[in-house]
């Protein structure tokens, strides 16, 4: 191998190696991601309790899920978590991102602390918040502030708010990082021109910063919206979908039907719906953004 031959091997022979280099990744990706994706579709036409044999059962599972009132509810809760957390996270992330992109002295220090939540597991976050929000022994009770010592996870409306808040706690830092990067790419000359024209700071924000961030907003929103479909561990530990089924999102509904109620067929139907909703949302946002395929690297992580 170390002997350098003076005649390079023919081009053709070289290139034939490349498909083999991609083979290991392809194999494992197909085996544990692509096949399961089709597999879940196939399983949605079967009956299986998770242990015994799998029996084909046609449309039984689909009929069971589609006529069950649980589905519209789970869809509605999923959509609501998505919409409310988007509506809260986006303005917050833009504000913080713009702030972090400025020259303020302390922003670097702030940045270090901001990203700590991203490092933590959803399990750790959910468990810490469960203790923190405990109406009897939590932070609010300890401080003696009645407003804070409510039964946060025991009432439907409050529990929903807590889920949205904790999700934002975890992900606003990530999105403000994206916005910080976006703001730093806006040419300074635009602001100088605006200043000469006498535009104030607020005017500059709405006429320059926001329009220039258009693609960043779409990127961040896509990640937020499609990502919100996959919240599972956080909600599972925080509320287990409760109280009642106030926070029972699709992913949780799938887990409960499949792995707790041993109804893998209907659970697979929910999983297929989850994929379809995610795909539809990614395509919709891409259409909204009017971006070409080459720029779509990030579609729906």
């Amino acid at each position, binding site marked *: 191998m170390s002997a350098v031959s003076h005649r390079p091997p023919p081009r053709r022979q070289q290139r034939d190696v*490349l*498909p083999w280099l991609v083979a290991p990744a392809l194999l494992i990706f197909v085996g544990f991601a692509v096949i399961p994706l089709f597999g879940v579709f196939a399983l949605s036409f079967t009956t299986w309790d998770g242990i015994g044999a799998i029996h084909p059962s046609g449309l039984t599972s689909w009929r069971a899920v589609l006529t069950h009132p649980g589905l519209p509810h789970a869809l509605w809760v999923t959509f609501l978590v998505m919409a409310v957390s988007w509506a809260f996270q986006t303005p917050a992330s833009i504000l913080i991102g713009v702030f972090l992109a400025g020259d303020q002295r302390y922003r670097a220090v702030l940045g270090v602390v901001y990203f700590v939540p991203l*490092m933590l597991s959803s399990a750790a976050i959910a*468990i810490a918040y469960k203790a923190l929000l405990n109406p009897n022994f939590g932070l609010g009770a300890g401080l003696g502030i009645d407003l804070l010592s409510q039964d946060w996870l025991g009432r439907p409306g409050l529990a929903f708010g807590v889920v949205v808040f904790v999700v934002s706690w975890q992900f606003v830092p990530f999105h403000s990082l994206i916005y910080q990067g976006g703001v730093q790419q806006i040419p300074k000359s635009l602001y100088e021109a605006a200043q000469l024209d006498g535009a104030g700071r607020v005017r500059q924000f709405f006429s320059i910063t926001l329009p220039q961030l258009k693609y960043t907003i779409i*990127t961040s929103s896509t990640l937020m919206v499609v990502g919100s479909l996959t919240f599972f561990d956080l909600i599972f530990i925080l509320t287990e979908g409760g109280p009642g089924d106030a926070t029972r999102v699709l992913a949780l509904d799938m887990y409960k039907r499949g792995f707790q109620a041993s109804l893998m067929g209907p659970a697979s139907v929910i*999983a297929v719906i*989850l994929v379809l909703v995610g795909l539809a949302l990614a395509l919709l946002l891409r259409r909204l953004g009017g971006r070409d395929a080459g720029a779509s690297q990030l579609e729906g992580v």
Partner: protein
Amino acid sequence: MTTTLPGQRRPQKSAPRERRPVSSRPRRRRNWFGGLAGWLWLVVVAVPLYWSFITSFKEQSNYYASNPLVPSGDPTLDNYRLVIESDFLSYFLNSVVVTVGAVVPAVVVSFMAAYAIVRGWRMRFLRAVNGLFLMGLAIPLQATVIPIYLIIIKMHLYDNLLALILPSIAFAIPLSVLVLANFIRDVPKELFDSMRVDGATEWTTLWRLAAPLTRPAIVTVSIFNALTIWNGFLLPLILTQSPERRTLPLALWTFQGQYGVNVPAVLAAVVLTTLPVLILYVFGRRQLLSGLTAGFSR
């Protein structure tokens, strides 16, 4: 911050950022709204972290009586002792095995694939594979867990750490290939050509040229994957059963079930499972953040 290769070409959507000395920047007026949001968010982020940390050093009896935001005057390590005595170390080792066992192969196979895709872009097959990986970014793990569970049972790997490793590798591949391919594309073509003229095989070029030149990206992708897999909860939840196979997030959850009333002990467990990641964060922060921006930049 990441690549400083000569001849680097990174497609930029927007106008190039102006480079000028800091001193000549126009003085910006204070950003009151952003500043307010920034400081407010600092409080929102820091208070739960601070509270969890100081509470984990309180005695259970003291915990109910004391001011929750004031650290204990007489900190105790009893909570940590309780957590460590409940097999924390074995859960920790399981997490290490799963994380290292998944990240190393994931990055190696992704790097090989990314290299092949960049170098063999003219081949329709490789472009199709690239497209498949890109679509893979949109496949949610949650939606595939039932068939994964089935496959793992059929392979007789249920309740085995390998059951966690294999799907973790698969789901790490799309983003890894994407980021690594972006970086390999930045290696000047002339370098590849001169390697070829010297008679190097693709295999040699891959490890001797492309890998060293894209090392920052490899480190970044490794950190990012390690973080995701270390924090994974769903796969351990459905693919393992016995306490000896628990990884940290799952152990944390079961511990909370057992010691739910002993809040300081639960929080000590939270702090202990979080500590390794925070140490990693302190050392790899720049790499991680630059990697995030490289993977998600526009």
